[in-house]
């Protein structure tokens, strides 16, 4: 059974306030029937150093990606993973993690591709929970396995592939990487030198909105009015825009996907998880350099 929403007035202005919970709310609801808390971090060991009591771990490398080919786990693998974590199909998932919820947003987006209905982010993530002095534990829960159904992943609604991007030219693209990656100064993210591409720059016509701009200093999402100024006034998006967001491997753009979809209420946002590591290495793919978006090539059907 789904758990009641967080009625906090700070969340009320968002398009879908039910997709966020505050740390206060979570502290009060830990242990509720039907609530599963999930930690998803960049660092595979961080959960082991201490996590929110009762939280289970999902690692983006070893759990969510296929170990061989470049793709996510399939329906069977996902069902097995959910079952092992004691998650039922109608459970409410509250996901949090390090680095302002980068990987938490990625896990949430992926759960959405598998149609898991009630998925929420913990506003402020792991850092905020710890900064507030809330309880953490190293005790790892051993939940009884569940019967989680095998569901085919929906790769059309919220996910874009390279051909979708080529067909999308003329509609808004958002590049959420750092300004240096966007302009072509560097092929890799600052601090992520091994996830490079053969060419630097951005997909022509993509507007630059680094993902972190959606987050305030304390790690929580900025208020709706500020997000609207950022994406609507700043990057030319509209509430009814059909948008594709990308970054380097799709994790920072999962965060932007969450912001546009659940906080601003856009209904047609896709995340291109192939992102720059694919586009920047594709033979013949158009690339723009510098700070200007550049012109959109003709869309390819």
């Amino acid at each position, binding site marked *: 059974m789904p758990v009641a929403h967080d009625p906090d007035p700070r969340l009320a202005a968002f398009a879908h306030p039910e997709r966020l919970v505050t740390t206060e709310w979570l502290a009060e609801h830990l242990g509720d029937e039907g609530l599963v808390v999930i930690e998803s971090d*960049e*660092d*595979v*060991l*961080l959960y*082991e*150093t201490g996590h929110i009591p009762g939280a289970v771990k999902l*690692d983006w*490398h*070893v759990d969510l990606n296929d*170990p061989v080919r470049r793709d996510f786990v399939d329906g069977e693998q996902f069902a097995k993973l959910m079952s092992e974590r004691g998650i039922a199909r109608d459970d409410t998932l509250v996901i949090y993690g*390090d680095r302002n919820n980068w990987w938490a947003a990625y896990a949430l987006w992926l759960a959405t591709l598998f149609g898991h209905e009630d998925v929420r982010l913990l506003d402020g993530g792991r850092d905020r929970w710890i900064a507030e002095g809330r309880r953490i534990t190293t005790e790892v829960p051993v939940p009884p396995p569940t019967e989680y159904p095998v569901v085919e992943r929906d790769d059309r609604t919220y996910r874009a592939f390279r051909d979708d991007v080529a067909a999308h030219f003329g509609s808004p693209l958002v590049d959420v990487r750092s300004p240096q990656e966007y302009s072509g100064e560097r092929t890799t993210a600052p*601090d*992520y*030198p*091994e*996830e490079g591409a053969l060419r630097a720059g951005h997909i022509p016509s993509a507007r630059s909105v680094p993902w972190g701009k959606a987050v305030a200093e304390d790690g929580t999402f900025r208020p709706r009015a500020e997000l609207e100024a950022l994406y609507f006034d700043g990057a030319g998006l509209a509430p009814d825009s059909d948008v594709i967001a990308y970054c380097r491997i799709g994790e920072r753009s999962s965060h932007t996907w969450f912001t546009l979809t659940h906080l601003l209420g856009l209904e047609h946002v896709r995340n291109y998880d192939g992102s720059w590591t694919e586009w920047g290495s594709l033979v013949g793919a158009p690339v723009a350099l510098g700070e200007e978006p550049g012109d959109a090539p003709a869309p390819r059907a």
Partner: protein
Amino acid sequence: MTATLPAAFAEIRDDFLALPERERLTLLLEFANELPDLPARYADHPDLLERVVECQSPVYLFTEVDEAGLVHLHATAPREAPTTRGFASILAQGVEGASVEELLAIPEDVPFDLGLTKVVSPLRLRGMVGMLGRTKRQARERVATSS
């Protein structure tokens, strides 16, 4: 293979391989917790430390070669990056007191021999390869400047 690893490093590798895969992560965490603070002479001189850009978290190291020609590796990484701390700690303990020749003979891909590729993922292990490469280069530089 053992012949090309310093004894301490071989022992660490064997300890990892002797464990079931799930427990290897726990051992890595123990290594992370064991990474000592930098000696004061380096803590007060961050300029002496070299950033390991292959790692996703800020990790810095300094390779010392003492008068007897033995290697001592000092490294620092943030508490929020326990995996990186674990790798640094394995490396520091694995090469502690080895000769420069022994250090240079360590295979570049030794991080992949610790049985961690499935529990940590290969991409993350590349950070440790970067640390080892920089440690070797620094050791060569120390030897070159002292002779």
